[in-house]
């Protein structure tokens, strides 16, 4: 833990970046023209770190995560930018068998509501064999062995799990099976999209503990996509906040939570229901998060809901830039003013 925390405190250079997203724009064709779901996003996943990507529905966080796999669903497409991975190179231009090799073999993805994505008619083991055949694995016995090891690592009885149908497993166990599927082809990068929604507090805590353990013991680089500040706070070394398709702030998780430098991050933390602290200090955010069509095309995307909005905010879009050691923000307001508000 200390090790990753120390590494998180160092500025992410391109040398130790496992995955680097550069100036990525993903557009969707709508009946009102081509709209960006992700706009000029820059994100680095430092090797060995857990990065949390936080945002509300429609903020583009899942689209960004899917573009790491080159799997943005049509009519969406990557219109500019690049995704580079250590040992693989540029991913967005890959097609066919090469892309399939990267998926699973290099980057494992646990989909949103993955606890509902198992085939109800086949046992988990049969589905694992399907996965192996689809990826041209020769040693299927080895694959099953590996899956059993992963199950044990996550505190489950491997043999029982492989012989189970999905209805015989609880929500938390299905979520763990999703992680087994993502890692069984020896992926180095793990992406989890909303890993704990639909789980109650106790199963959530168990799944979070398991993610932390798997991350540490296998030595993964992990990205957790979620809307829940609590989930990232519990796990993440680094934190990136998305709003309206833009990354508006990133930095070491503790720093961002302690002194949020973007008005949106600050408002989101203040709007989180907590068991500690004064309930009267909590404030709901006015307005609603923008969607693909309603997101402003000029100026700052957050200005309508922002407590610090100025004239310049409706004219120029703020650029994500470094303002303090290892921290970046995209806001016209003075960093000092926002952090000390």
């Amino acid at each position: 833990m200390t090790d990753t925390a120390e590494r998180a405190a160092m500025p992410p250079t391109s040398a130790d970046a496992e995955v680097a997203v550069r100036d990525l724009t993903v557009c969707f064709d709508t009946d009102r023209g081509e709209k960006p779901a992700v706009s000029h996003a820059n994100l680095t996943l430092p090797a060995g770190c857990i990065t949390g990507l936080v945002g509300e529905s429609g903020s583009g966080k899942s689209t960004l995560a899917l573009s790491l796999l080159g799997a943005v669903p049509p009519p969406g497409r990557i219109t500019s930018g690049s995704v580079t991975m250590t040992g693989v190179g540029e991913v967005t231009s890959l097609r066919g068998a090469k892309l399939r090799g990267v998926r699973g073999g290099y980057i494992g993805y646990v989909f949103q509501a993955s606890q509902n994505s198992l085939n109800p008619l086949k046992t988990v083991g049969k589905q694992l064999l399907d996965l192996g055949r689809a990826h041209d694995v020769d040693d299927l016995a080895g694959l099953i062995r590996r899956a059993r090891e992963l199950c044990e690592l996550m505190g489950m009885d491997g043999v029982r799990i492989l012989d189970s149908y999905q209805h015989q497993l609880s929500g938390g166990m299905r979520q763990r099976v999703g992680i087994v599927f993502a890692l069984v082809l020896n992926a180095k990068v793990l992406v989890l999209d909303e890993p704990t929604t639909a789980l109650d507090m106790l199963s959530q805590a168990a799944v979070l503990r398991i993610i932390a353990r798997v991350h540490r013991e296998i030595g993964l680089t992990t990205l957790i996509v979620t809307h829940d500040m609590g989930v990232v706070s519990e796990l993440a070394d680094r934190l990136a906040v998305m709003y309206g398709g833009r990354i508006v702030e990133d930095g070491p998780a503790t720093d961002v939570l302690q002194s949020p430098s973007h008005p949106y991050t600050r408002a989101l933390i203040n709007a989180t229901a907590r068991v500690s602290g004064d309930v009267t200090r909590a404030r709901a955010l006015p307005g609603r998060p923008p969607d693909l069509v309603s997101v402003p095309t000029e100026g700052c995307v957050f200005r309508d809901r922002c407590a610090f909005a100025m004239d310049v905010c409706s004219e120029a879009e703020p650029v994500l830039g470094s303002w303090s050691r290892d921290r970046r923000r995209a806001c016209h307001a003075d960093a000092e003013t926002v952090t000390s508000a």
Partner: protein
Amino acid sequence: MIEAVGIERTFHGHGPFTGSHVVRALRGVDFTLPAGGAVAFIGESGCGKTTLGRILAGLETYDAGVLRVDGKDVSALSGRRRGELFRSIQMVHQDPYSVLNPTRTVAATLADPLRMVARRDAGGRGGFGGRGRDRGAVDRRARELLELVGLEPDGVLPKYPHQLSGGQRQRVVIARALTVDPRALIADEAVSMIDVSMRLGILSLLRDLRERLGIALVFITHDVATARYLGADGELHVIYRGEVIERGPVDTVIQSPVHPYTQCLLSAIPVLKGLEDPGPDRLEPLGLMDATVDTPGCLFEPRCPFATERCREEHPELLKQSVDGADVEHACFHPQIRHVAAVDLTHA
């Protein structure tokens, strides 16, 4: 206004693989909801909290016990009288995406129950000229209700549900519940599917309705933190496998829980790094809940880190105890206060 004594509910299931099985969803729940009060039920999935909510709203039957609404035993009433009585208790469901008819505008959604209320009122007065004959009155009341729930009537009335955000939809659902002038709302996970930035808005709306209109709240959730936002003198009831195992004022139970299960639940809440420190006595339950195991002893005993021989053999009943100057009740042979909830760093 609602009084429940020993409510029990057992479901008899029959599956192709499992054969017949019996699930005891509620095992004798007692509680009182005073007029204008707030009670929150917390527990993990499958603990019976949703079944309880449905029974309180008159949507589910119970097998044993007594349920009184306004002092009347609901089982002794005719179907029609019971329907009238339960009209004063309305439900706000978890998923605002599926409880609104997608083919009807907000105006139509609100107008129907309003016209029904108006007809009933007019009938009650035995004459014409009631609100039912006056379209204007229905429209005015719909606008009033939308303003009450924090929506802008002109913008929202002509819209269909798909044109609204989750938070706005949940407000429409609450406005619809208010059309029949209820005196209690039952909110089952009412904010869990809403964007984080708008959850607090819905919670403070519920608190406002309680403070301004005296509408009582039954709040069912697995997220303990949200129960704190329902206003003063709220009660927290912790349910485990159909039994209340601890109850008391919200803040007392969160800050000084005495039952190990409550302590496990509170320990599971994520800590906000940099803003909070984890509680010093954080606990983890042993294993998972197994609803099929029946025991003469404490139901939580198989997962309890502090279980003894007595817990295996004898069933603990709810006992009163004074904690931090407040009255709480717990069902544990080895009650001990443990501080497991996160501690605020910013204003410590």
